[in-house]
């Protein structure tokens, strides 16, 4: 069985990330499942960067709890990460850069990466490629996977560059032949033979948006959402859509509403600061009933916060941001594959219910890569908004006509007889301003909230349960923590604890029926969140008189399975001894 975590650390801007990415793709091509995790500095050059890839011959749910192999390009990387390598783990390091005193704790491989690069190849930065050669040879990853990948990657730069890289790879391989292997890690080839895509969460989301029919993307650059825009700028024109880079986020969402009003599926993606700017427009989309998809790849706030670190801190803003009575749908994405399908569901919900759908991702999910089976388009059929019938267009079209399901037919400019004004003012059924009609305001507010009856059904259907369906110790999480929670629940069950996790996809409106059913009969419910105050727990407490136990982490990093397992075990022990459960911060 293969389940191994590699971590590469070094100076930001010196190729740590690209080395990690090459390693990842080579492992995926070798037939393994991969799960990457990356933290990087806010600076472009300098600062500490690291890239981690977990590789296994089974479905991977999290980045793991420890590191099996550390590749340290500099001393800082060693200092920072050696503690995550348990006894008996492997540390490979650039012995030209620093030295490590011999120890029994770790298996050390000092390798003069820098001098090999300068002396054998003549280019210092090829130490990255040499290190890949070292990893390939030492852990028996098929050499041809690396060689093929380098050829693919560098062929645009010409044959000379390809040859230099292949040479560097060989230098690493040869060096390993001269040393003695003292660890027992062997990767080899994985069980999967069918090709899989290697995508980041952001790439998967962008691809999903195209599959959903999104043909206009409007956005303003912001980490960690920018690569969605960059991806679409490259890919959308190939199929007849395009990207507009606007002057700010208000303009971005304005363009999205204009485009959607005019009949095109459109999207914007941003992070907290930009999302804050969009709240007024979200209200407009609600009152004018315009389908819109807004992605927030969350990062640490408030304000500029920690731009390259992860947090689940924008849930309040997503649910409550804006003034007035402002129903919108809030969804959270769970994993890389789900980014592809989840965003399609978001478009469908926006179209079906003619309201804004806010999709929460985060830095952890957006920037990590995973192997994903080639997408199946049949899984999520495209839904488009309800259009007026010819009869409705002829006989005095009413844009906001009251209907049993609260959804009115939406015309599109160019349709004869369908003219109306999309109104930010409160309006009547036709769309005429009714800013002083008190009764009408109640009626139209009821119409807009009425759509929630149906959305809540969908919300109930879009939950997943892992582990026991009616556990003693329950966990309810959201967004990108799903895999970690699922892994923790599995571990708890292996230890004989009755544990189970519910993971809703739509957070607002809440899947009340499913949650009610899930928590009835449990002894304790843990709500893990990567934020300080427990925003989701607060939403739950509003609807359930239940003593939810919070588990909060607020250091700009995602949970590890062990952190959640520890809490489950602690709560299980407390329940057994009838002690009061209590909240924890990790």
């Amino acid at each position, binding site marked *: 069985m293969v389940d191994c975590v590699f971590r590469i650390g070094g100076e930001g801007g010196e190729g740590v990330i690209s080395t990690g990415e090459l390693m990842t793709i080579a492992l995926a091509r070798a037939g393994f499942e991969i799960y990457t995790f990356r933290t990087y500095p806010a600076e472009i050059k300098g600062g500490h960067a690291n890239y981690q890839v977990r590789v296994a011959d089974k479905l991977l749910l999290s980045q793991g709890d420890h590191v099996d192999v550390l590749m340290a390009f500099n001393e800082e990387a060693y200092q920072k990460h050696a503690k995550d390598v348990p006894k008996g783990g492997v540390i490979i390091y650039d012995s030209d850069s620093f030295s490590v005193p011999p120890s029994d704790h770790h298996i050390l491989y000092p390798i003069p990466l820098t001098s090999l690069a300068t002396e054998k190849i003549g280019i210092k930065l090829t130490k990255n490629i040499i290190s890949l050669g070292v990893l390939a040879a030492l852990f028996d990853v098929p050499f041809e996977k690396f060689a093929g990948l380098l050829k693919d990657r560098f062929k645009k730069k010409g044959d000379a560059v390809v040859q230099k890289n292949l040479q560097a790879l060989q230098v690493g391989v040869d060096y390993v032949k001269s040393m003695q292997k003292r660890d027992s890690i062997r990767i080899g080839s994985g069980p999967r033979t069918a090709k*899989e*895509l*290697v995508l980041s969460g952001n*790439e998967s989301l962008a*691809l999903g948006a*195209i*599959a959903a029919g999104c*043909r*206009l993307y*409007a956005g303003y650059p912001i980490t960690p959402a920018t690569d969605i825009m960059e991806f679409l700028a490259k*890919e*959308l*024109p*190939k*199929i*007849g*859509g*395009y990207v*507009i880079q*606007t*002057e700010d986020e*208000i*303009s*971005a*969402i*304005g*363009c*999205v*509403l*204009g*485009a*959607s*009003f*005019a*009949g*095109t599926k*459109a999207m914007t993606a941003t992070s907290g600061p930009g999302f804050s700017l969009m709240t*007024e*427009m979200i209200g*407009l989309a609600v009152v*004018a009933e315009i389908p819109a998809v807004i992605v927030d790849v969350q990062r640490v706030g408030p304000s500029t916060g920690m731009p390259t670190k992860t947090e689940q801190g924008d849930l309040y803003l997503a649910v409550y941001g804006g003034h007035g009575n402002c129903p919108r749908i809030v969804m959270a994405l769970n994993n890389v594959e789900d980014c592809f399908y989840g965003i399609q569901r978001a478009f469908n919900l926006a179209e079906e219910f003619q309201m804004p759908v806010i999709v929460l991702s985060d830095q952890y999910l957006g920037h990590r890569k995973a192997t994903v089976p080639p*997408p199946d*388009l049949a899984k999520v059929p*495209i839904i488009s908004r309800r259009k007026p019938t010819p009869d409705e267009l002829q006989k005095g079209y009413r844009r906001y006509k009251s209907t049993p399901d609260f959804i009115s037919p939406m015309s*599109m*400019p*160019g*349709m*004869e*007889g*369908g*003219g*109306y*004004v*999309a*109104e*930010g*003012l409160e309006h009547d059924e036709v769309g*005429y*301003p009714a800013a002083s009609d008190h009764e009408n305001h109640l009626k139209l507010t009821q119409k807009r909230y009425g759509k929630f009856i149906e959305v809540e059904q969908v919300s109930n259907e879009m939950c997943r349960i892992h582990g026991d369906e009616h556990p003693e110790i329950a966990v309810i999480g959201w967004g990108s923590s799903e895999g970690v929670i699922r892994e923790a629940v599995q571990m708890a069950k292996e230890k004989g604890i009755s544990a189970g996790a519910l993971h809703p996809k739509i957070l607002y409106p809440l899947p009340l029926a499913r949650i009610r059913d899930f928590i009835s009969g449990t002894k304790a419910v843990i709500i893990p969140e990567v934020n300080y105050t427990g925003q989701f727990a607060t939403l739950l407490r509003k609807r359930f008189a239940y003593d939810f136990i919070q588990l909060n982490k607020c250091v700009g990093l995602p949970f590890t399975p062990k952190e959640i397992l520890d809490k489950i075990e602690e709560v299980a022990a407390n329940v057994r001894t009838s002690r009061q459960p209590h909240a924890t911060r990790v």
Partner: protein
Amino acid sequence: MAQVKEYIGKVKPDWCPGCGDFAVLNALQRALADLDIAPHNALVVSGIGCSSNLPGFINAYGFHSLHGRSLPVATGAKLCNTDLTVIATGGDGDGYGIGCGHFVHTCRRNVNMTYIVMDNQIYGLTTGQASPTTEKDVRTKTTPEGSIEVPLNPIAMAMTAGATYVARGFSGDNLHLAQMMKGAIEHKGFALVDVFSPCVTYNKQNTYPWFRERIYKLEDEKHDPSDFRLGLEKSFEWGNRIPIGLFYKTERPTYEDEESALRGGISLAKQPLERNNLASLMEDFL
């Protein structure tokens, strides 16, 4: 040719009697009729303000958006439905104050649409505060001792930001105004028509008689609108003589011309959704 009455909306304008915006509405209806643009192919997008209520009074598609945000919405609609005639309207506070960022960038993009600003040099809807075009020393509710800021110059701003048709009209001269609008709508590119549209209720300084004493038409002085420097010079003329008319007009490829996905094809909004092409995009990620 279409009749003006085809463009009259069902809602009656709620402007104060004498408000300059009536003339703007009439001129726009006249221009649309003269150009024979079917009401269902016209879209009027506005922000918030007295002037921004205009889309409600015209028989066409409309979008009454947010204060200052008409241009982004209009841009999104136009780019996805290039067959539409898109006209954005609003006030000076809307376009040159809160929406100023969008204004300069929309000029720069040269999207093929028309922007009509009812410039009354005051905030009308909020009942009389200073606006970005309020003249220095003018007293308003928020400048009881007279404004200490200098007004901005929308004509010069539009020209330097890259608008390709820059004109000014006056609500006291409806035929000339309709002419400016027709020129703007026919022009291929981003066209600004800044209109002296007096607020009879809150601006006691820049009134109809005040303008009548001062304005003259650039056309009458044989101004050459292809001359950028001259147009810019004219835009700074203020005081005893104030020009209206076409300051500047040039040809430059529009955003739609430059964007490969839009070039020559059918409007995005009218294209059937193709999903089969997705496979080709995935090859990069295997």
